[in-house]
């Protein structure tokens, strides 16, 4: 696979190194001359000096035959532009972009650039996973489809505690898909009973978390 990486910062350099090790052909593009020289000592001809948002620089690096373009510069507007021209001008089928400021994620989405990797966002999600708010963890978000899969712990004395799945009183647009108990999981039937301490996986329409939390959470209405 021929991979073009723009931005030889820590992420770009290490990605290039790993991909070369896995027998891919890689070209790394770096706009800062000093950084370029440092990286060139190790990667030699696999790194090129230039502004990767300039079309001729991308063309010199062979973007037309690239199987994948990865934009990992420190500027989101550059990453957006690089991915946009890679896909729309040069027909590169796979692009991956880094998003430095999570507030800019909406711009990537607006311009149809995906997948987008945001370190800040990833860490925030990990924090949520480690320290779940109301015991609710997002496992998968599909914003375009307006669906999500969540995991929630059943609090003792909550509305759900001791109820059969069919009697949980869940809002329309939500469905229990699995119950995790004592280290194993099972797909419940309508008459499976939910117990305090269970972790329940649900698929639901975006925006229903609060209603779900009310049924499973500690202060849930009876």
């Amino acid at each position, binding site marked *: 696979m021929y991979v073009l990486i723009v931005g030889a910062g820590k992420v770009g350099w290490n990605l290039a190194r790993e991909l070369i090790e896995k027998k891919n052909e890689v070209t790394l593009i770096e706009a800062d001359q000093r950084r370029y020289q440092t990286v060139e000592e190790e990667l030699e001809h696999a790194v090129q000096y230039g502004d990767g*948002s*300039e*079309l*001729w620089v991308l063309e010199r690096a062979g973007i037309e035959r690239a199987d994948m373009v990865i934009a990992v510069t420190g*500027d*989101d*507007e*550059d990453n*957006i*532009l690089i991915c946009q*021209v890679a896909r*729309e*001008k040069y027909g590169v089928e796979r692009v991956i972009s880094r998003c430095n*400021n999570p*507030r*800019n994620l*909406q*711009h990537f989405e*607006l*311009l149809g650039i995906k997948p987008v990797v945001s370190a800040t966002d990833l860490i925030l999600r990990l924090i949520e996973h480690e320290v779940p708010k109301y015991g609710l963890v997002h496992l998968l978000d599909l914003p375009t489809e307006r669906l999500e899969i969540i995991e929630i712990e059943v609090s003792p004395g909550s509305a759900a505690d001791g109820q059969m799945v069919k009697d949980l009183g869940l809002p329309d647009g939500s469905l229990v898909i699995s119950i995790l108990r004592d280290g194993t999981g099972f797909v419940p039937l309508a008459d499976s009973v939910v117990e305090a301490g269970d972790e329940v996986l649900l698929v639901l329409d975006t925006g229903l978390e609060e209603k779900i939390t009310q049924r499973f959470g500690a202060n849930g209405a009876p």
Partner: protein
Amino acid sequence: MFVLICGCGRVGSTVAKTMLSEGHQVSVLDEDPEAIALLERGETRSWEDMGGQFTVGTALESDALVEAGIERADAFIASTDGDNTNLVIAQIAQRRYGVSRVVVRVLDPARSDWYAAQGLMTVCPTKTAIELLEVAVREESSA
């Protein structure tokens, strides 16, 4: 007409002053609070007293764009010093906020041409300079 200008350098500030003097509503957004000085240079009144609006903020931040009035803008000019920033915010203005008239300054002729072909109204000062220089040289040599 309500005109929003992002980037208050030599170009942005001059266009802003012209538009204001022609009776349009003009809002200017720049990340440098000192940039307002360019709007007030040679004037006796402040930019706001003249009826202009000035917002300090980064054009990529939606909050700043909204504060500067993008939701009611009839025209949007992207004239920051970064080609990529201009091209991204122009597309945001067009696609997210539906601004009907969007003009982008792009210094790089190659990016200017390609984005123009994609439907953005680009203005490339580099290309203009090249054309004028070539004409000037030809006139000189034929004189």
